[in-house]
């Protein structure tokens, strides 16, 4: 990896911006488009300066997500490497057909004669005050669809590296960034991607409980792990980073060691991708597993009032309680 580690810290959104810049620089087939991404520099600043630097390779489109995403497929078939910005993941719903029925099928159904090397970048999740139509975490819907690669980066470094890997993948990638995390900072090595699609990040090692998480919950998982360590509980924290493909080996290895699995994500618990991971581990480990639980948002549309949304979202407290109940159960 011919990378340089920036001495300065970068925000998550700045890392995204740098990754887009570097992707445009590295491959002339890359084009970037979306709503307000060019002249206005992007609704969240992800594309800041790119139109100035790369001209018409970065352009604005009408509010026509279905055409935008369908066009990404056609452009990819035709030899470009489009990166499309969808402003909020919630808006993917108006373009779902082009993702599920078109993009995901392209390579398989053509028996590999066509491909869909494209990236759909979006951001998701609840922030205080956002309404139900601007708050969802929707990765599980897409992870159910064969043919899509799904990433959910949680750190500036991963935001950068995953986006570079996505941009150079020969297959479609949906990157679910996090609006909540956009201002958070960290060191970022630039120059290339992380190198392996689907690789989890072992955030910390531990012996009693494995916490598998991604996106916004990563930071809460670390806090929860700190908290329970005071009671002598040692948590291993895995940030999956990708849920399709996901790092089954890393998860199984960790749970084989700890015997306990807590999967935690911001997306709704019911039918969330945590269920896939828990089920896979049960199928793999059978009686080797001493206990498993999931944490996710409660099954309601996300309310706007911050005290209400806080009541249904995952939290450090919920994670701590989850860890305790997992270990207690085991004892009982």
């Amino acid at each position, binding site marked *: 990896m011919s990378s340089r580690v920036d001495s300065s810290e970068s925000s998550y959104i700045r890392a995204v911006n740098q990754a887009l810049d570097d992707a445009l620089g590295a491959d002339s087939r890359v084009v970037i488009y979306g*709503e307000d991404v060019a002249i206005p520099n992007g609704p969240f600043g992800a594309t800041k300066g790119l139109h100035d630097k790369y001209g018409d390779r970065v352009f604005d489109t009408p509010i026509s997500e279905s055409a935008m995403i369908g066009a990404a497929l056609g452009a990819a078939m035709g030899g470009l490497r489009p990166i499309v910005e969808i402003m909020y993941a919630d808006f993917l719903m108006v373009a779902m057909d082009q993702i599920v029925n078109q993009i995901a099928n392209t390579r398989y159904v053509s028996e590999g004669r066509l491909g869909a090397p494209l990236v759909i970048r979006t951001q998701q999740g609840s922030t205080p*005050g956002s309404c*139900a*139509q601007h708050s969802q975490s929707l990765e599980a819907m897409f992870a159910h669809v064969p043919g899509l690669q799904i990433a959910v980066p949680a750190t500036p470094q991963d935001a950068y590296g995953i986006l570079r890997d996505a941009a150079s993948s020969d297959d479609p990638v949906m990157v679910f960034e996090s609006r909540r995390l956009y201002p958070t900072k960290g060191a970022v090595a630039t120059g290339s991607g992380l190198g392996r699609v689907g690789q989890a990040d072992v955030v910390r090692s531990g012996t009693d409980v494995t916490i598998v998480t991604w996106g916004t919950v990563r930071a809460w998982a670390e806090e929860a792990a700190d908290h329970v360590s005071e009671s002598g509980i040692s948590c291993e924290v895995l940030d999956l980073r990708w849920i399709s493909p996901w790092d089954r080996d890393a998860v199984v290895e960790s749970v084989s060691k700890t015997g306990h699995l807590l999967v935690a994500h911001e997306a709704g618990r019911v039918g969330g991708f945590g269920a896939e991971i828990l089920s896979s581990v049960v199928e793999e480990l059978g009686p080797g597993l001493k206990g498993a639980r999931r944490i996710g948002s409660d099954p309601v549309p996300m309310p706007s009032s911050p005290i209400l949304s806080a009541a249904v979202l995952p939290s450090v407290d919920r994670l701590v309680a989850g860890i305790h109940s997992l270990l207690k159960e085991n004892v009982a």
Partner: protein
Amino acid sequence: MTAPPSLEDLYLRMLQIRLIEEELLRAVQDGRVTGSTHLCIGQEAIPVGTCAALGPNDPVVATYRGHGWALSRGVPAEELLAEVFGRDSDLNGGRAGSAYLSGPQYGFYGENSIVGAGVPIALGLAMACNRLGGNRIPVVSIGDGAMNQGNVHESLNMASVLNIPLIVVVENNGYVEMTPSATLTAVPAAARAAAYSIIAMEVDGNDPLAVAATVSDAREAALQKSAPVLVEAHTRRLGGHYSGDAQQYRPAGELEGWRATDPLTLARSQLTSEAAARCEQQAEGAVSAALALAEGMPTPNVEEVMTHVFSG
């Protein structure tokens, strides 16, 4: 509409909306509102004029830029403010917030934060009104940029072939978020009506009397022909797309120039100074009273956060 509304009355209504939204902008800045809001500053004449022309039970559907529509349709200011403040309002108990609130008891069937998505819903309301009778016609408002969203297209054709009376008001405010409308929309809304074989009307959206008259005509035409009517109201957004928008994309001097056609300035210039002063006093009083009421409302009860996912 039996008698045309008085300009004084319309000015009063526009002013109340303006004062409420200016207060909300301050509230976002000083933290009383968490999150962002989409204000209709500069566009007040459209909801005010439209609602003045509606029948008492005509349902209204709006976008995220919907405070003006909610208030014009009859949602009490204190309830709207409380909802935007995330309080336990009688509207939606803080669940909806600024961009997704509703008050069907007032005829306001809700804002919508998905561009264009209110149009199919309004089509369905129109199907219901058409079938169930009662001389009701729904009005749905969208922005000019929403004309490029597929669901709007589908709904206009469907309303046309099914002969459903419905009024679609397109507020052409010159911008689609931060991008000038003309660069994104090949043909403006009214000129697209021919593609659906529906009647189109255009109106100065900064003149509430003109809007009222046009919508009144539209309503009559829709009922008489049992068909949808599209009204394109030309206006200018006199602020950011949302409360945190720094508006760096605006050409220098644009906003200053546009202020000359601020509907409030225009209406005020046609009123006597006594009438204007009367309105201003009344509006300020009403808004500060509503604000006090809203700020006194309790925060939502967290214990009830799981209710109403389903009925019963």
